[in-house]
């Protein structure tokens, strides 16, 4: 089970709110790679993907937002809830860099709650240390 495409969503293309979530594993750590729009329409899709990954008892979880073009508070809420609800011993890390993602995450203090990294390599290094 190396790579698994969870889903693309079924919202009408007219809204443009499409989000793709992919799950892959690396030495027991699961990476949830998200692309597209994470807004009030697509945030539940991200939440489901994270829950499903956590159910497989990873040693750590990285949410990689590198390819997210728009991140709203609905998505930020999912990230904080993931951190707060994660089973003991599973560290949650974020990857984001840019005006649409790392900037608002820092502005409202989420980067102070969930460790935020500029690159996936940094996040994986932090988890293995």
């Amino acid at each position, binding site marked *: 089970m190396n790579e698994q495409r969870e889903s693309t969503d079924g*919202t*009408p293309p*007219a*809204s*443009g*709110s499409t989000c793709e979530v992919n799950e892959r594993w690396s030495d027991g750590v699961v990476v949830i790679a998200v692309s597209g*729009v994470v*807004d*009030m*329409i697509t945030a539940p899709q991200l939440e489901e993907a994270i829950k499903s990954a956590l159910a497989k008892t990873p040693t750590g979880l990285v949410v990689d937002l590198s390819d997210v073009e*728009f*991140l*709203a*508070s*609905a998505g*930020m*809420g*999912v990230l*904080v*809830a993931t951190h*707060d609800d994660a089973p003991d011993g599973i560290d949650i890390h974020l990857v984001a860099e840019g*005006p*649409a993602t790392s*900037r*608002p995450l820092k*502005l*409202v203090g*989420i980067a102070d*709650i969930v460790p935020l990294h500029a690159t996936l390599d940094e996040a994986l290094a932090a988890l293995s240390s």
Partner: protein
Amino acid sequence: MIDSMSAPFLGRTAAYADRFERIGVIADPDSVARVREEFASWLGEFFEFGANRASDAVLAIYEALANTAEFAYLSAGRPGTVDVKASHDPVESSLTVTVADRGLWRTAAPTPGDRSRGRGIALMKALADRSSIQTSTGGTLVRLYWARVHPAGTSRH
């Protein structure tokens, strides 16, 4: 330029160099997502705002709209409408956006201990240079303001 994005839309639309209006937008998640995209296109086409601040403005407007779509018309049981007006003041070089609905906002803080919700208002405040939220029995008016917004091609870096 004639607005080419007048997709199926129940309200009036306008997008000129100094003005963006969407009146009577259905306050549901799909419609507000569409307005966000149209607003982002308008900003990108007519202004030099810098990547950070353009991104800030788009997110702030979305949060105002999302709050309406999520909460304003809860008690009504079906979505009402929301009006978005953005205007550029060439003298002041400022951008003012208003988002007005006729519903009741959830203004209370999120449940204690629940850190996962209720960041929309904090985001709006952090993202805009100035912001205000007026609530009354008639509805809610969000006003967002950015200084130093210059029309495309006139940047004074």
